[in-house]
C-alpha cells in the first residue's frame, strides 16, 4: 500500500476544473517533484491533499495510508502526518510564533495520546529543531509570519515542518523567493528531516531546488494532467527544452 494513493483525481476551484485525472503513488522514503508551467494545477494538487476548503474533489480516489482523505478535515489530515509548506504563508497578527508552534505541537501530541508540553518544556524541543533550519531566535518573539520577508516566511514554514516532523511533507514552491544561500539552508533542513518513514512532494517551477533535494521521481503536470513521469534527469530535460514538447493535444496550459 502506498503512503499516498491518487487515482484519476479530478478537482475544481471556484467551479473551474483544475485537476483533470491525476494518478500518482508516493511511498515512504520517496521524494517526488511535481513540475509544470504556470496554471497547470501544481499548487491545487498540493492543496487538495492538505484539504484546502477552496478545492473540491469532483471525482477519483485520494487515499493516505489507506484512508479516504475526502472523509477527513484539514486538521485531521495534519494530525495524521500531512504537512503543507504554503506557497504564500498567511500572516496572523497578534498570534505569537512560539505559541503557535506550541499549539500545533501539542495538538499533535494530544492526538497521539501524549501529554501536552508547557512553554518551558517546549522551548527545549524548539531549540533543537531551530538548529535544523538555522532559524534565528527572534523568529519566536514575532507574530506568525507578520511582517516577515518572503524568504523569512518560507524559512518559518520549514521550521514548522521541523517541529511537527510530518510523514508526508508537501512543499509548494518553497524555493521561490529564496536567494541561493537561503535555498541551501532550506534544502539542507528538508534533507535532514528525510527518513525511510517519511515522504516529500516538492512542487516547483525550477530545477534548481532539485540540485539540493534530489528527487526519486519527477512528474510533469500540464493542464491538470501528468503528461510525463521519470527519474531526476527529467527535470534537467525540462530545464533545457521547456514544457512545450510535452504538451497534450498540441498545446500547453
Amino acid at each position, binding site marked *: 500500500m502506498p503512503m499516498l494513493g491518487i487515482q484519476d483525481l479530478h478537482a475544481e476551484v471556484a467551479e473551474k476544473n483544475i485537476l483533470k485525472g491525476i494518478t500518482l503513488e508516493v511511498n515512504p522514503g520517496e521524494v517526488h517533484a511535481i513540475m509544470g508551467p504556470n496554471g497547470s494545477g501544481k499548487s491545487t494538487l498540493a492543496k487538495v491533499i*492538505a*484539504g*484546502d*476548503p*477552496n478545492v473540491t474533489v469532483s471525482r477519483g480516489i485520494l487515499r493516505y495510508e489507506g484512508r479516504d482523505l475526502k472523509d477527513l*478535515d*484539514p*486538521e485531521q*489530515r*495534519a*494530525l495524521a502526518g500531512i*504537512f*503543507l509548506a*504554503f506557497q504564500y*504563508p*498567511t500572516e*496572523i*497578527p*497578534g*498570534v*505569537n510564533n512560539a*505559541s*503557535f508552534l506550541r*499549539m*500545533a505541537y501539542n*495538538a*499533535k501530541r494530544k*492526538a497521539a495520546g501524549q501529554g501536552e508540553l508547557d512553554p518551558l518544556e517546549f522551548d527545549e524541543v524548539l531549540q533543537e529543531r531551530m538548529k535544523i533550519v538555522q532559524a534565528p531566535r527572534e523568529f519566536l518573539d514575532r*507574530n*506568525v509570519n507578520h511582517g516577515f520577508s518572503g524568504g523569512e516566511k518560507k524559512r518559518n514554514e520549514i521550521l*514548522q515542518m521541523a517541529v*511537527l516532523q510530518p510523514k508526508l511533507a508537501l512543499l509548494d514552491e518553497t524555493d521561490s523567493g529564496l536567494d541561493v544561500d537561503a535555498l541551501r539552508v532550506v534544502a539542507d533542513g528538508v534533507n535532514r528531516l528525510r527518513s525511510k518513514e517519511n515522504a516529500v512532494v516538492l512542487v516547483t517551477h525550477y530545477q534548481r531546488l532539485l540540485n539540493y533535494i534530489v528527487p526519486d521521481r519527477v512528474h510533469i503536470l500540464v493542464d491538470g494532467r501528468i503528461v510525463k513521469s521519470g527519474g531526476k534527469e527529467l527535470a534537467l530535460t525540462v530545464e533545457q527544452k521547456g514544457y512545450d514538447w510535452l504538451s497534450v493535444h498540441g498545446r500547453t496550459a
Partner: protein
Amino acid sequence: MKIKSIHEIVNREYQYGFKTEIEPGVQVKGLTEDTIRFISHHKKEPEWLLEFRLKAFRHWQKMKEPHWAHVDYEPINYQDVIYYSEPKAASADDKPKSLEEVDPELRRTFDRLGIPLIEQKKLAGIAVDAIFDSVSVATTFKEKLKEAGVIFCSFSEAVHEYPEIVKKYMASVVPYTDNFFAALNSAVFTDGSFVFVPKNTRCPMELSSYFRINTEGSGQFERTLIVCEDNAYVSYLEGCTAPRFDTKQLHAAIVELIALDHAEIKYSTVQNWYAGDVKTGKGGIYNFVTKRGKCAGNHSKISWTQVETGSAITWKYPSCILTGDHSVGEFYSVALTTGKQQADTGTKMIHIGKKTRSTIVSKGISAGESSNSYRGLVQVNAKAEGARNYTQCDSLLIGPRCRANTFPYVDIQNATAQVEHEASTSKVSEEQLFYFRQRGISAEDAMASIINGFCRDVFRELPGEFAVEATQLLGLKLEGATG
C-alpha cells in the same frame, strides 16, 4: 459539533438564555406619574427622591429619543414596558434578607450563572451584589467590608441608610437633563449598587454586581453610584445576562463614579445580555446606558474596562470628566458583535484640569451581519494646560457581511495639548483558519487564538480571574470551548 467555517463559528447559541420560573410579585407596566409614585412608595422612598423622579419624568416627556447613533431599530413603545418587576420571594415590602434567607430558586439561578450567593472561602476575594429584575436579592460580605469602612449595598438600601451621601453625589455626574435615556432612568430607576470608600481606604476585595433580567417585557433601570474619597481605591466589576425572549427588552442604566483627590476607581464590565436571534434578530436587549466618571480630585484616576458581547443594540459611552489637575482617565474596550447585533460604543474624555491624561484603547470585533461602531470624543478645554491623550482604535472583521465604523471626534481648545490617534482594520480570513487547521489546530482554537491576540491590550486591564472569564466568554460566543 465540528466547526468548519467562520460562518459556523460565529453563529453559536447563547448560553444564558434560560428563564427562572418563579412566582412574580408586584409588576407595573406602562409609564405615567402614577408608575413613578408607585415605585417610590413601594420602595418607601423619602419625599426628596420622589420629587427628583417626578422632575426627571416631566423633563423626559419633553425630550425626543436620540437617533444619531449608527444603529437602526424598531420604535420603542414606552407604555409597553414593565417598569417594576420583583419576584415575590424578594419583595421590597420585606426587610432586606440575610444571605441564608435568599429564595432557593433565586440562589439556583445565580448558581447557574456562576455567581454563588454565599460567602465561602473560595470566593473570599469578591463581594457580590445580585440584582434580579428590579430588586437586589443579596449582597455578600457586607459586614466584612463595613469593618474596613467600605459601604457596599443595593442602591435602595443606601437611600435609607446613607441618604446624605446619596443626596450629595447622585446626579452630580449625570444630571437627569443629560440625555433622553438618563432622564428616563432618573424617573423610574429601581435598584443598582452603591459603593462608598472613605478617605485613605483601599477596598480589601473586588466588588461586583450581577444584573439579571428574568421577566419577559421587563425593562431594567438600574442605577449605580460609586464614590471614592481622598486617597481611596476600589475595583468593581459588573456582569449581565438575560433569558432568550422573542420581544425586545429595554435596559437603560446610569452609572456614576466620583473620585476625589488621589482616589482611584477601576470599573470593569462584562456585558452579555441576550443579543437576539442570530439569524432573524428577533428579541434581545436594547442596552442604552449612560456611564460617566468624574475625576473631581487632583491626581485622581478612573479606569473603564468593558467587554461588550451581548445586547441587540448597544449605545454606551463610559466617559471621564477630568476636572482635577493631573487626573487620569482610561477606557479599554472590547466590543464583539455577531448575528444581527449593532453596537455604537466608545468614550468621551473631557480634559478640564491641568496636566490631565487619558488613554483610549478600543477593539471592535464584528462578525455575521453585525454592525460595530466606535464613537469617541477627546475634548481639551481652554484651561487644560498640558493635557495628553492617546487613542488606539482597532477593528477586526470576521466574514464578508459585517461592518465596522470609527467616528473619532477631537475638540482641542488649548494649544499645549498632545493628542495621538492610531487606527487599524484587519480581517480574519478563511486562509488564516486553514493555515491553523493545516497545522492540526481546530478552527475553534484558531479563532480563540486570533481573538485573544487582538484583545490582549484590553484583557490585561481586567482584574485577574475576570480576564480568564472574558476570554472564555468570547470563547463561548465565538468558538465554543477551547483547548
